[in-house]
């Protein structure tokens, strides 16, 4: 009788899910770039909240993991020339708790509770979410909506990319293979009273959004719109910003809001998949856009009348 073996013999090491890799924790961004330049199969790891599952399923098999999480130059949230600069390795939970972010980039503050769960936000980084470029992720959506600048270092020196140029497709960015994201610069809106709104449709809270809409608006004390930005995530293969300039200079009533958002969402690029058709996504994008903009206007008006 043949006895079936139950797993590995005790003398052997138990199996591990990821394929073997080398692990390096460099001391500077320059060193990170040098390692990436020398080995094209090396990959950067920060919080690892997306990369580690990919490794466990062997969908990613890097030769080397370059751990940037502890690099001091990639940490922190600071105000600089009318912008809030967040270091790439700043954890999402830190940004969520930051008074500077809440005050100066309220839209980012509003979406952070929607990013994963508290335990993944304690590890996951702001830069990691951007570099991962998931079309339905909230942080990339805010970056595109607010025209953030993504800061990257490679072996030739620092580069800055507009968020719109940064995301080119699902999980695809224009970061060069030898580049390492170092931070993101969100412009601070100083005009008028700022309101924000965010809505998303997903199977369960914290799952990937089928469609999401983020709005930041600034109004004067009379409720006239000074500046408005609407971004749609999850619909197409990357987050996109829609044009709502028709609302600037007027005091938008409900009908004008619906009309402007519907016009802007016309021809929105959307994809069909298992969860939702492209038609559904386009329709929901407009509905969520209207809701997010209405919330944002109401918030700005309350601040303006206070």
């Amino acid at each position, binding site marked *: 009788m043949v006895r079936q073996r139950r797993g590995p013999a005790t003398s052997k090491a138990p199996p*591990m*899910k990821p394929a*073997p890799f080398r692990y390096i924790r460099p001391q500077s961004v320059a060193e990170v770039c040098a390692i990436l330049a020398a080995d094209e199969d090396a990959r950067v790891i920060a919080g690892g909240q997306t990369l580690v599952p990919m*490794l*466990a399923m062997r969908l990613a098999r890097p030769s080397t993991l370059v751990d940037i999480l502890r690099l001091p130059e990639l940490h922190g949230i600071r105000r600089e020339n009318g912008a809030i600069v967040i270091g790439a390795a700043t954890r999402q939970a830190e940004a969520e708790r930051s008074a500077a972010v809440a005050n100066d980039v309220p839209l980012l503050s509003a979406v952070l509770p929607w990013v994963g*769960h*508290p335990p993944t936000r304690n590890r996951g980084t702001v830069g990691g979410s951007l570099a991962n470029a998931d079309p339905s992720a909230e942080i990339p959506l805010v970056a595109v909506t607010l025209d953030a600048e993504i800061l990257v270092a490679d072996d030739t020196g620092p580069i800055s990319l507009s968020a719109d140029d940064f995301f080119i497709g699902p999980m695809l960015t224009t970061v060069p293979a030898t580049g390492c994201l170092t931070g993101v610069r969100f412009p601070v809106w100083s005009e008028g009273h700022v309101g924000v709104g965010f809505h998303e449709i997903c199977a369960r809270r914290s799952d990937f959004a089928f469609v999401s809409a983020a709005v930041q608006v600034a109004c004067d004390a009379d409720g006239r719109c000074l500046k408005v930005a609407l971004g749609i995530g999850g619909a197409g293969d990357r987050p996109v910003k829609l044009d709502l300039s028709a609302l600037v200079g007027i005091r938008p009533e409900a009908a004008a809001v619906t009309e402007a958002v519907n016009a802007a969402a016309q021809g929105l690029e959307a994809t069909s998949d298992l969860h939702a058709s492209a038609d559904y996504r386009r329709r929901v994008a407009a509905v969520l856009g209207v809701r997010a903009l209405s919330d944002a206007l109401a918030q700005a008006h309350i601040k303006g009348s206070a």
Partner: protein
Amino acid sequence: MHCELRVNGTMHEADVEPRKTLLDTLREDFTLTGTHAGCEHGVCGACTILLNGEPVRSCLIFAVQADGYDITTIEGIAPAPGELSVIQDAFCETHGLQCGFCTPGMILAAHALLQHQTTPSRADIVDAISGNICRCTGYGQIVEAVEFAAERLRKANAPIVTPDSNGGAR
């Protein structure tokens, strides 16, 4: 690769492969099997531990990444061997567990919440345990357990204990 981990206040040294998760290291190298291996790709929350006091998934960290950090597992929550923490006790009293597989993760998530917030709302509790999946209880009694524990912890520190308050320090 050599790494040093302070687990439940004790320094542990281990020579681990870089691809070994903190979860496997805790269970296999340190025989701390209270941290449960569920989905092993960051979905279920059964492997939740506290890293420098904050709940994280130990299946999504390699042990080498945790080098030098302070780690608390479910084994480090009780005040003394054979005793239960206030939160663990509350889970027993309100029947906040059935099969018990998710319980260590739930208790650590609740523990971290109650460290920051002494009077959490129901929504705060739901948010804190939203990353932990339970397939038995339907969550109602888990939320109740955390509310109950929060109340007991608040009363434990109250300066005046009236005769009719049946909570108090246990």
